[in-house]
């Protein structure tokens, strides 16, 4: 006797359908599991057996074969407990066939259903395939946040069995609306006094998607500014929010389907795997992918080991992390915007107007060299953040994020609609600066890009001399 149930696997931040096939044969009692299961999946056998018995039903004492298809996707975790149990019960004719729903959930020995990291993925598949999904009750709102998902939450295996016996006739979970006071909400720019230059740089970076580096003495507010950057970005669209949430769930990071852009700030001791993803077993996304469509903030960037920083080059270039394994290649999207902050030297006071730097010159050079090279070449804006003077500190309130964000959204819309043009005079100005040695060829490209964004912020289709001039004044060779 054969039955199949549908479940879900997260591969590279994408939800893929997995078919749980169960065959109950006439042979002597046994339990076989195939289809690239990991240890946690193998152990499903014991949990499923106990849970079925706790639910007051019989586990068939014959040869049970379970196959998770397609066999080439590795499956991990306890997500398949519930679909295996449902499959076994329908194959042994205890309940009707259950192939019309995506099922995920871990089983406790007493038959309770626990939530799993693929709950959201089940919701996504439910919407994509126009099927119902059955998940743990506690996590059902996560899946119900996916537009178009039809979600049933169950507390126990017995409830799930009931649901299938009644042909999924119950009322599905109501759709979840994003909580406006989510903990992911970014702090506001109105808290930042002074720092006009840095504020302008943040606005341009937000409008043009430029990577940005702040440098300056400690206590200048680099980190404070950077932490407010996400608040300047337009909210995620619904489908982007789902995509981002799905990547987070693949890393087992709880984040609902929220419009807020992710803001990830890994510590400088983070390993390469933590930064770009990977790990033993099934590859999990790293910070670069968790920051997808949001901000990756590297505080004290020069403290990161150089090799770890270099792993970020590929995602910055391709906007995707590719993890190649013997069995498969997994791609995690990683279209993040890099924001970095660093002291100018180990002691932090190199170039300070008042305080002498106590570092040895060689140490300063070494420190700066850590940030040189291919990574910093991709950073369009390098801005010095000085310490705020007392006058600025007592200044009246600053512009709130929402006003800046509206300009940013306007510039992005304008940028999508226009064709890129540059006035001859503006092109000549860049050429002259290049020729006089004021800027390098790479610097010229950066200035061109930043000038384009400045023009977009002013809703000007043609980049003119003034835009180039402002870009010049913001340039800062590291």
């Amino acid at each position, binding site marked *: 006797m054969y039955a199949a149930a549908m479940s879900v696997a997260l591969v590279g931040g994408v939800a893929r359908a997995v078919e749980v096939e169960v065959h109950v044969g006439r042979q002597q009692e046994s339990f076989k599991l195939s289809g690239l299961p990991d240890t946690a999946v193998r152990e499903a056998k014991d949990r499923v057996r106990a849970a079925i018995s706790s639910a007051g039903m019989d586990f068939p004492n014959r040869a049970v074969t379970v196959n998770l298809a397609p066999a080439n996707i590795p499956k991990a975790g306890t997500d398949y407990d519930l679909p295996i149990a449902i499959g076994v019960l329908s194959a042994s004719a205890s309940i009707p066939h259950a192939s019309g729903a995506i099922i995920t959930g871990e089983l406790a020995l007493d038959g309770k259903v626990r939530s799993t990291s693929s709950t959201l993925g089940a919701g996504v598949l439910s919407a994509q395939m126009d099927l119902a999904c059955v998940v743990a009750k506690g996590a059902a709102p996560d899946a119900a946040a996916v537009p178009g998902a039809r979600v049933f939450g169950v507390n126990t295996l017995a409830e799930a069995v009931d649901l299938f016996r009644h042909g999924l006739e119950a009322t599905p979970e109501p759709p979840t609306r994003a909580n406006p006071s989510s903990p992911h909400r970014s702090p506001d720019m109105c808290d930042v006094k*002074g*720092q*006009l*230059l840095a*504020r*302008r740089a943040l606005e341009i970076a937000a409008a043009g998607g430029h990577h940005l580096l702040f440098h*300056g003495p400690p206590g200048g507010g680099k980190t404070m500014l950077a932490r407010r950057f996400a608040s300047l970005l337009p909210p995620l669209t619904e489908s982007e929010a789902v995509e981002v949430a799905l990547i987070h769930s693949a890393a087992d990071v709880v984040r609902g389907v929220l419009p807020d852009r992710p803001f990830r700030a890994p510590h400088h001791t983070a390993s390469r795997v933590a930064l770009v993803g990977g790990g033993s077993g099934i590859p999990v996304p790293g910070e670069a992918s968790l920051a997808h469509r949001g901000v990756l903030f590297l505080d004290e960037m020069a403290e990161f080991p150089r090799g770890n920083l270099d792993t970020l080059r590929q995602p910055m270039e391709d906007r995707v992390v590719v993890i190649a394994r013997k069995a498969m290649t997994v791609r995690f999207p990683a279209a993040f915007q890099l924001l970095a902050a660093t002291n100018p030297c180990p002691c932090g*006071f190199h*170039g*300070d*107007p*008042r*305080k*002498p*730097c*106590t570092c040895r*010159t060689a140490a300063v*050079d070494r420190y700066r060299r850590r940030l040189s090279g291919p990574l910093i070449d991709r950073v369009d804006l390098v*801005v*010095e*953040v*000085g310490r705020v003077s007392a006058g*600025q500190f007592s200044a009246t309130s600053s512009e709130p994020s929402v006003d800046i964000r509206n300009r940013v959204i306007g510039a992005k819309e304008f940028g999508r609609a226009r064709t890129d043009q540059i006035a001859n005079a503006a092109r000549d*100005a860049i050429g*002259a*600066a290049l020729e*006089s040695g*004021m800027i390098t060829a790479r610097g010229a490209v950066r200035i061109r890009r930043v000038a384009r964004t*400045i023009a977009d912020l002013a809703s000007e289709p043609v980049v003119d*001399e*003034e835009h*180039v*001039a*402002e*870009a*010049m*004044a*913001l340039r*800062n060779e590291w």
Partner: protein
Amino acid sequence: MSGEDRLVEVSGDGYPVGLRDLEDPPPIHVLGQLTPSPGVAVVGTRRCTRYGIDLAESFGHVVARSGWTTVSGLARGIDAAAHRGALRSEGHAVAVLGCGTDVCYPRENRPIYDRILDTGGAIVSEYPQGTPPARWRFPARNRLIAAMSAAVVVIEASRTGGALITARLAAELGREVFAVPGDVDREASEGCNRLLRDGAHPVLGAEDLVEELALILGPPPGTRVVRSIPDGGVDIEELAQLWNISISEVLVKVGTLELAGRARRRGGRVYPV
């Protein structure tokens, strides 16, 4: 790379007059051009503050712009800044080295070294070409700086720094010594403040320095250029307040000045050219 220098004997033509005040004037190796205009040494510590750098550039600038020669030691920090200021004015700059005239030490100052030669300045040393830099040669170099100059301006110096040696030698040779007063609790100003206690002239700014030097050296031969940005530079954010326009407009103006070669920016500060 850098051509061969020429040896100028103590009795030779073009030997800097001031050096003859030394007890043991050495023959010197010269790369580039020496001029008879009076020299003003702008010196200080390598471990300086940005404030010191700004002042050194500004002073190096006004000295050379006034038609005098800016003399310094091509070291990191204050020395390099003084040279840069002088080069900016297209005035006359002289670097006195503690190694051969073909050895640019520290290497990072190579652009300054090259520009000095390009703009008609001179690289001077008492050591033959090929002599490597050595710590013990620097005080001897300082003696040349002091003797070659009619006045010595110490921007920032620690209590034990080489700049103080230059100042003391200068005083012994009867040169005028100027020092920039600084916070009493700042290490980089300690040397200067001690000089002031011992009778050096306090420097109260670039204009003040020119006036004081004019009293000693006679009116400056150079002419002045009018500018809208103060010599010591100004924070871009301050300009927004000063000119009462938005930061974006300030950036446009600063960038335009920069593109026209009339201003230079470092970090968040802008300087006149």
